[in-house]
């Protein structure tokens, strides 16, 4: 018997894929992306078509709106930095140490995602207002939180902390303890080992997490609005400006401001992705 006698059925001719269902699953995915992500964005740009370039420029450079950019970006930046530090610490504690109640703390990390942002906002506002017990205590030391940008940053930090914890945590879990031990066995102090060996390993995840937290904070509305006080030129955030325009049925104006937030967010996400891609390629053996 020769091997030539065996002939495979040509039933699969024309398709070289082994995994089934590519056409169907890809089609549904594209449809979903179009409906849920792309369509609203197209709608947004459709609204912008009602404006001339000069009008558009006038709306987005209105002094009150510009003041809101400063407040939003400043508070979101502070919130992101706070989260970078404490998010890293929380992830570190959750991965590296064993303690009772660890599972509970781990579950608590997702609370800001699960809790309606408005509920968080009201809670924070009542807690930190002069009449609230935390606000009262801080007021005694002359620190005002509610109705200032500190309160805004606080609310933003609250809603975006899971981004940092949940991006750093898996990377830290994957990092073998040997790396740490190798650094120490070579004579590195704990601080040096952390700065030169551990942090660079976590760096891509930390930057991504912080970046996501920052972008999330830029658009945060529900949690911030109750604690912000919303004083024009002082504690108004950009999301509120959009809301105000909508209240005045100025859809085009609202879309104009929204487009600025959208561009900034997209640009940031893109930048993070490109940077991270480069960094990761180096770790996995590409030229870098």
């Amino acid at each position, binding site marked *: 018997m020769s091997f030539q006698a065996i002939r495979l059925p040509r039933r699969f001719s024309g398709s070289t894929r082994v995994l089934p269902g590519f056409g169907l699953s890809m089609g549904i995915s594209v449809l979903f992306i179009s409906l849920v992500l792309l369509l609203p964005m197209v709608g947004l740009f459709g609204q912008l078509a009602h404006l001339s370039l000069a009008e558009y420029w006038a709306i987005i450079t209105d002094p009150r709106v510009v003041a809101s950019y400063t407040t939003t970006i400043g508070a979101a930046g502070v919130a992101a930095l706070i989260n970078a530090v404490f998010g890293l610490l929380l992830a570190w504690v959750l991965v590296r140490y064993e303690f009772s109640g660890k599972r509970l703390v781990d579950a608590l990390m997702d609370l800001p995602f699960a809790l309606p942002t408005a509920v968080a906002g009201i809670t924070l506002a009542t807690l930190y207002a002069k009449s609230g017990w935390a606000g009262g205590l801080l007021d005694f030391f002359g620190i005002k939180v509610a109705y200032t940008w500190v309160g805004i940053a606080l609310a933003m930090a609250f809603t975006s902390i899971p981004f940092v914890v949940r991006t750093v945590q898996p990377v830290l879990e994957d990092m*073998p303890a*040997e*790396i740490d*031990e*190798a*650094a*120490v*066995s*070579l*004579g*590195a*102090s704990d601080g*040096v080992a952390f700065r*030169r*060996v551990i942090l*660079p*390993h976590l*760096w891509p995840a930390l930057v991504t997490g912080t970046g996501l937290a920052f972008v999330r904070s830029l658009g945060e509305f529900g949690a911030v609005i109750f604690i912000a006080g919303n004083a024009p030129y002082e504690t108004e955030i950009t999301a509120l400006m959009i809301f105000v325009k909508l209240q005045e049925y100025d859809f085009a104006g609202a879309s104009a401001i929204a487009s600025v937030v959208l561009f900034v967010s997209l640009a940031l996400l893109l930048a993070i992705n490109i940077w991270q891609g480069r960094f990761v390629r*180096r*770790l*996995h*053996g590409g030229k*870098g």
Partner: protein
Amino acid sequence: MSIRLENIGKHFGDTRALEPVNLDIHEGELVGLLGPSGSGKTTLLRIIAGLENPDRTGTRTPARILFGQRDVTHVHVRDRRIGFVFQHYALFRHMSVFDNVAFGLTVMPKRSRPSRSEIRARVFRLLEMVKLEHLAERYPAQLSGGQQQRVSLARALAVEPDVLLLDEPFGALDAKVRQDLRRWLRHLHEELNFTSVFVTHDQEEALELSDRVVVMSDGRIEQIDTPETLYRAPQNRFVFEFLGDVNHLEGQVHDGVLTCGDARLAVDLPDGAEDLLLRPHEVCLAEQAEADCHLPVTVTAVSPVGAEVRVELEADWLASPWLATVRHADFERLELHRGRRLFAHPRQWHRFADEKADFLKPHAA
């Protein structure tokens, strides 16, 4: 630098990983810790390194680790002056090969740190030694496993450690690379003469590389000896069985004859149950039985690759098949093939009755 361990034991929670052991390693010696997984060999190595702490026993003799005259029992790993090579290399992935090797030098306190140019010279000297100077600018992920392990070794040697400790250094590499690296490490050791301890579960590796081998099982040291002594005069059944292939002959001795089914062997032993052990090279094959030795077997597999022919033997009276190695000349003379019926003759056999080697020749052979 010599190493002296006194009363070193270790518990993880309620599990005992290591019974209190004593061990002396001479200066310049290359010692292998050999044992199956879970035998405590890695724990012992990590305790020498300072990556684990020995139990603080409540007994009168406290645990002590001495490097030369220096008591390092309570010295932190970073101040112990050891080099540690990990099984999975543990290289810093974000640093180039050069920076990896230089790491130990660049983290030295400012007073004792060599100058930039001196570090550079030293790193390149090490890279030359491990034959990787042309890859200094590469990142670990761009290297093969064998190259990564050499970088890891150069990194450990850069700080000029008193002792070099290696945890299954070749365990993650394929057979050919492992062989090369083994020879290379042996040469490096002869050249630099550092005191070195390595862990392995591969008996061949341990016997080939070490000046002395420490055989461990179940958290205990079974025997410490040179490879030759270990192989020729194992102290107990575990060491004998762990150091190579073993054939068992179990049966009842009555009036100087061991019987097992239709197998008979004249032995000079008192009456009772016996379990005799034979190495594959101690089994001879013949077409005829003899008066004092009747061990009928059937050939079930033949592997004629290598210096000797490996033959698998089965019989009704055998619980598990025997392995015999015969010379190619005998292989041709006996016309060995699967299904061939022959008789086995033990050239010699071993017996471990009371944890002491009993080394006997069959009395009529």
